[in-house]
């Protein structure tokens, strides 16, 4: 009984996906959207600035602190 369970679960999803009507179109849209978002937008246009330009948390912290304190001497 317990051995059957993964197979039943697999069949549940397999039959569900096979029986889809409008769902097939929706899945195509979801996949295209995710490819555009992760393989194009994220990869080419949205690098994580701090992770890309600095290798340690200390360097990232130093950069942000520099941004937040850089011209205090001029104003205060």
């Amino acid at each position, binding site marked *: 009984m317990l051995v059957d369970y993964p197979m039943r679960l697999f069949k549940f999803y397999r039959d*569900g996906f096979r029986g889809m009507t409008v769902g097939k179109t929706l899945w195509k849209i979801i996949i295209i959207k995710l490819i555009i978002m992760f393989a194009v937008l994220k990869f080419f246009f949205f690098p994580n600035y701090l992770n890309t330009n600095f290798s340690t948390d200390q360097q990232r912290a130093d950069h942000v602190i520099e941004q937040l304190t850089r011209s205090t001497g001029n104003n205060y």
Partner: protein
Amino acid sequence: MKMGEIDLTMVNWARAQFILTVMYHWIFVPITLGLSFLCAFFESMYVRTGDDEWKKLTKFWMTLFGINFAIGVATGIILEFQFGTNWSNYSWMVGDIFGAPLAIEGIFAFFLEATFFAVMFFGWERTSKRFHLFSTWMVAIGSNLSALWILVANGWMQYPVGMAFNPESARFEMQNFWEVLFSPVAIAKFTHTTSSSFVVGSFFVISISSYYLLKGRHVNMAKRSIIVASVFGLISSLFTAFTGDESAFANAHYQPMKLAAYEGLYEGERGADIVALGILNSGKRLGDGQEPFAFEVSIPKGLSIMAKRELNAFVPGIKDLVYGNEAEGIMSVAEKMEKGKAAVADFAAIQEAGKSGDEQAKAAALERFKVNQDYLGFGYLDTPEEIVPPVATVYYSFHIMVYLGSFFILLFMLYLYFSYKDTLEDKIWLLALGFCSFFLALTASELGWVVAEVGRQPWAIQDLMPVKMATTNIGVGHVQTTFFMFFVLFGALLIAEIKIMLKQIKIGPEGV
């Protein structure tokens, strides 16, 4: 900080990109939150009565729910991309606070949705009626729990509690998770946002059902759907009005400038009236002595009651909050800026002492920093007037939202009354109005976001970090390019959703 060092054009393009993404994302979210519960109600009726008409009806609305979910899913992830690229200072500083709520969202709510989502769509003939119903309820609860964690994170930005700022790492560190979760602002945000989303979901159903009644198609299904959606919508509308009042009360305590802006209150007063209907004087500037309104109809003492629950309580106006009011114990922004600049200077001194290895100087700078750290954000302002958000945008957004919200209560009542009288089909004017209602509800929901977010400008984190300090020092061209890329992508996705949705509506319940 001299503004010459910050590219304000970049800041504004990054803002515009964020606005575009959030407002697009927010088309789908309220429909998901509201329609998920309506599907659960419809299916509960099916399980209770055993009537196949309810089953057919449930499957139809579930299909539309699925379309909306599929098109909307992951559009919120784009916001996270933007955090890392355009808002890296902010991301770094809040990482510790946002990590916990967003991780819980991912693990708990998302997996709850994902697990039961499959049963909801694939399990009609493969699971028992009761387990299927349980799954539908779990999807509804899971979707709304997702919203809880996002809104807790947003609530923290509006009222940062349960944390301490570590000047050595430049991070806000979580001190008390429960204080963050149960912050009055987070609770007000969650209850108001979800209940208003239920209203949007209800009008989604009423709008399409009204269309069917106008066309004389699927009449029985449309009437049943309208009754359930009207009851849910009416209860949600009343609750939205209550939670809206609670939000205003929270604003009065934690974000008084936002309240003053959306009420158009320039001069604070005791027993302050609330403007029920008014047109702002567009020539009005802070401190120029001109009347703030070209025309107004006010309710005596209404604002004092709403803001402080007292008839004669003092409600500070924009002028009091900018220039201070000694009699009412309100510090001027100029004074806060002095303290803020001292905090920024000590923040720098801590780093300098750390680099030179002077532990004594570092400890002294840290002690001085702690005295003024609550004013840190004010140290980055150039003028006291910078803390005033765009008054007209916030004022009109708020008032249109309130008028629409009040109108919705009446509309739900009319739908219920004529449904009870069984004359709904004859009321063409009401059905036409109901058909438009979804677009009005979505407008009100988007305006609510404008009030909450534009109303708290210039702050990314209230009093601690202005938006201009939250950005990454990258070129404006990059942000402009991605703005237009998103514009095209979102436009294409929206056209796809509308086309698929319209096709499915045209087919009706027979096609599911």
